[in-house]
């Protein structure tokens, strides 16, 4: 049995998206910048796709810019807001410790360029408070960027509340909604969001397509890629028509089924959480209440995540881990460390991320094999031996 439980990494492209994309390769293959019929047929599809995102996010089509993905959208959003701030001599940016690296590494670069960055600490719940944002805002703050939902632990941030505070104080507000889009309701007007990034391949669209929403008048977009006049001159390069059309078809479809998908996936998620937290000395990372429907993230004491993933893979289960060994770096996940977990516990993390394509039988399979694998690895582990004999104290 093959169980794909790594939907936070990427998802399978939906039939609807594939069907929408196929004619774009050989029938509507034109360059939307071309004046002739073939080009204009492509331009029309591009325009329709833009309208879908505008309608679903509740904004104007002219406020939608297509990019190569979530990372580019994040980079452009942050660079643009920073440049706009610098013009007014405002060089302070507020974010959180557990953002995606597309945000954190861009902020690191901006701080080298003279911006001051405040990263808000993350409580154990994995949910920051809007009040933390209010306290951090200063007269020279030019941007607040807080992710909609965390990519590792799935916790949902109080975006409407943060949006209201930022609007009240006149600070542009960006949210990286890569994990949330298509899974949680998003209304950029009602939520007072000024800039928002999303990525198509997280909701059954193709890879290589991102969307950047920028509220008109909030921030003037700055190019990250220079060249032709595509995307109102703000993002050069011939548009990825097939990808964009697939992305809009996937988004349209998933937004139609948002509530029913959430209900179904939440049931599967909660069964996994209930079952897996029965394993002794395990803990759910981040609170269960404000959590993406498909996210399960646990730590098991005394074992290391990569070996757990390899053994799950041998049983057909595709998952991920915040262990250092899987990332190629020395430190375990910055998200788990931000939650206050000790290094040695953070190494033993497991993320299972579900979609509406998963079934109850697949959950049964995960629940059937995981406890045995954890036990096997603990029996090999000298850390577990020390925990059990009392020379080391259990942390969880």
């Amino acid at each position, binding site marked *: 049995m093959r169980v794909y439980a790594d939907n936070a990494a990427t998802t399978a492209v939906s039939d609807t998206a594939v069907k929408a994309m196929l004619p774009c390769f050989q029938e509507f293959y034109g360059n939307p910048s071309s004046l002739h019929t073939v080009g204009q047929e492509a331009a029309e599809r591009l325009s329709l796709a833009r309208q879908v995102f505008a309608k679903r996010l509740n904004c104007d089509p002219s406020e939608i810019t297509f990019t190569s993905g979530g990372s580019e959208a994040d980079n452009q959003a942050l660079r643009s807001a920073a440049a706009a701030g610098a013009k007014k001599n405002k060089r302070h940016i507020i974010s959180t410790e557990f953002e995606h690296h597309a945000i954190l590494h861009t902020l690191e670069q901006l701080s080298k360029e003279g911006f001051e960055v405040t990263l808000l600490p993350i409580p154990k719940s994995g949910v920051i408070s809007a009040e933390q944002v209010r306290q951090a805002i200063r007269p020279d703050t030019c941007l607040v960027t807080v992710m909609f939902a965390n990519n590792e632990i799935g916790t949902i941030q109080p975006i409407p509340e943060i949006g209201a505070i930022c609007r009240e104080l006149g600070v542009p507000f960006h949210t990286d909604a890569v994990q949330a889009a298509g899974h949680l309701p998003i209304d950029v007007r009602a939520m007072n969001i000024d800039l928002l990034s999303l990525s198509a391949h997280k909701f059954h669209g193709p890879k290589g397509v991102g969307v950047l929403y920028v509220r008109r008048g909030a921030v003037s977009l700055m190019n990250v890629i220079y060249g032709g006049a595509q995307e109102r001159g703000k993002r050069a390069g011939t548009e990825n028509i097939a990808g964009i059309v697939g992305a809009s078809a996937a988004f349209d479809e998933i937004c139609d089924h948002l509530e029913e998908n959430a209900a179904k996936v939440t049931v599967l998620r909660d069964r996994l959480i209930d079952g897996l937290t029965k394993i002794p000395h395990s803990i759910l990372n981040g609170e269960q209440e404000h959590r993406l429907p498909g996210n399960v993230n646990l730590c098991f004491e005394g074992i*290391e995540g*990569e070996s757990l993933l390899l053994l799950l893979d041998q049983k057909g289960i595709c998952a991920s881990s915040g262990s250092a060994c899987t990332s190629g770096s020395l430190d375990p996940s910055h998200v788990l460390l931000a939650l206050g977990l000790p290094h040695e516990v953070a190494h033993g993390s497991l993320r299972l991320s579900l979609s509406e394509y998963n079934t109850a039988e697949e959950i049964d399979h995960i629940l059937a094999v995981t406890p045995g694998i954890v036990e096997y690895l603990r029996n090999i582990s*000298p850390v577990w031996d020390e925990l059990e004999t009392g020379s080391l104290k259990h942390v969880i």
Partner: protein
Amino acid sequence: MLYSEKVMDHFQNPRNVGKMDDADGVGEVGNAKCGDIMRMYIKVDKDTQTISDVKFNTFGCGSAIATSSMATEMIIGKPVKEALTLSNKAVVEALDGLPTHKLHCSVLAEQAVKAAVKDYYDKNGIAYGDELNICDHECGHCAVE
């Protein structure tokens, strides 16, 4: 695949895994903070100065477990002095290679053997040279604090 068949075999069917209560030498290297710890136990035949039994416990990734397992196989039955010449390179070769970012696991395996022998020498008053001063903290793996 990330790992060779041999690595996967030693990871999934590790040889000589477990504790040894009457070990003559025990060596532990690595750090849980860094994500891997190896503990190696050796039993030495005093008359022949050969390693008659080896056991290990490892906390770590697939390659950490596989390199520990392979290292135990490579020193069991060997004279203690010969075990000291086991190099991380030899362990990697015996496993048909490791990804570059996993090479430090083989260094740990080599060090775990040396640490166990050092412990045996210390307990038995056997003199040894600088070659048993293990872990120079220069492999960069234990950069955490």
